[in-house]
């Protein structure tokens, strides 16, 4: 545990000393600028437009920056032979992997906090609190997915594409499932097969459409029970990704 905390601390220090804080600040400025522009041209609901646009864009930025940072960090470490050096020290592979994951999740949490702060201008603190907690969990999940793919696939572009693909599927699987379940699609064999595949796929994906929603900032956060239920689903998926990553990392011959 102590080893994991040390690795996590250094992962966080690496994130803070990299270009990530500058990129995050640039994202905040760009998003505030864009949403401010949109609110100026809106003829009604200017504040709602600003809040919902900024919330949606900042959410996407937080997930993408976390994913890219994790993948690049793992790739850099592999190129510099830092991984071999770290594992030559008296530290177990699981402790190392969990330490990295914890560090990246903390970096994601800091990003989520930075991105939630400007939304205080338009959203109620209680609603924003729910949105922030949800974004913290979502970025932790993005970090776990990125770490898993970066470790398993080794290629940077492939890892980013896989992590982003998983995220997009998680965001859209509910809509895809609803479309596939429509009786208008018929009962032909291809339609039934498509329905079955979509249903099976949905079992293996997180429900990201149910969390960190922009409408929470406008119309209020969901009840605590509902929020906890949605976040519990993400927590289970986080555990699954962490376990899969640990399994893969433990088997890899370095």
């Amino acid at each position: 545990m102590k080893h994991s905390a040390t690795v996590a601390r250094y992962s966080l220090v690496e994130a803070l000393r990299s270009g990530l804080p500058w990129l995050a600040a640039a994202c905040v400025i760009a998003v505030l600028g864009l949403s401010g522009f949109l609110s100026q041209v809106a003829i009604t609901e200017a504040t709602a437009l600003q809040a919902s646009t900024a919330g949606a864009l900042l959410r996407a930025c937080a997930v993408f920056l976390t994913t890219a940072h994790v993948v690049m960090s793992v790739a850099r470490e592999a190129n510099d032979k830092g991984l071999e050096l770290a594992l030559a020290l008296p530290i177990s592979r699981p402790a190392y992997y969990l330490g990295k994951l914890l560090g990246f999740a903390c970096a994601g949490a800091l990003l989520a906090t930075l991105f939630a702060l400007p939304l205080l201008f338009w959203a109620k603190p209680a609603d924003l609190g729910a949105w922030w907690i949800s974004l913290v969990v979502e970025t932790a999940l993005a970090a776990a997915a990125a770490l898993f793919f970066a470790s398993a696939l080794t290629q940077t572009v492939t890892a980013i594409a896989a992590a982003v693909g998983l995220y997009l599927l998680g965001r859209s699987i509910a809509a895809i499932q609803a479309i596939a379940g429509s009786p208008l699609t018929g009962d032909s064999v291809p339609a039934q097969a498509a329905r079955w595949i979509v249903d099976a796929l949905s079992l293996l994906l997180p429900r990201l459409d149910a969390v960190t929603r922009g409408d929470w900032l406008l119309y209020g956060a969901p009840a605590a029970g509902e929020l906890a239920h949605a976040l519990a689903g993400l927590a289970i998926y986080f555990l699954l990704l962490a376990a899969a990553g640990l399994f893969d990392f433990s088997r890899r011959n370095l």
Partner: protein
Amino acid sequence: MSSLERPLSAVPGWILWLLAAALGSQLAWQAARRTGAPAAADLPPAPSAQALRLASLGEPAALARLAMVWLQAFDSRGDNTIPYQRLDYQRLIAWLGAILATDAKSEYPLFAAARVYGENPDPAKMRLVFDFVFAEFASDPNRRWPALAHAALLAKHRLNDLPLARQYASAIQQLTTDESVPLWARQMEIFILEDMNELEAAKVMLGGLLASGRIRDPQEQRFLQGRLEEIERRLAGPGQAPAR
């Protein structure tokens, strides 16, 4: 075994257990949360066509069709005795209008309006859909006539509203100019007039159609000539009208 991998025994046992437990929890959790088609109340208010175009990121044709596929899932779940019965049709029509405005060449919104949403047993909802189809028809009659023709048939046979059916048939007859529009669609008004017992008007229209020279197929000419003679016999007197 690949030399890139260590044996399975190199993996600590607790990781295997954690992986199995996490996978089992994920499957159980998602299986418990499985959702079917969204309910009628879940249909959000329609966005503007401009908003849809903006969201399409330069691919309005793809977005319009995807939006239709998404839209048709609402209130269509299997436990519905009558699909779309609970759907807010004002909201639905606003969606159809926005999608059609996003890609005006798409036939999907009007096809779904006439063939799916227009077949609702609620006459008020049917009329709402037909009004929408009729309003949109005028913008591109040569492309949109099939939806209005189906609406005319439903107005005649389901609503038993012959004046409404005639209004639609008349619009098709007057506004379509493309040669590819079949004659049955352009002749629909004549037969509706017959059903309305407006035999004089039907005779004038049919005679005009035959005289215009637009009908080149000899079989079709013969058929329509026969119908014209039949109308003339019916006008001459009930005793001479042949059984239809």
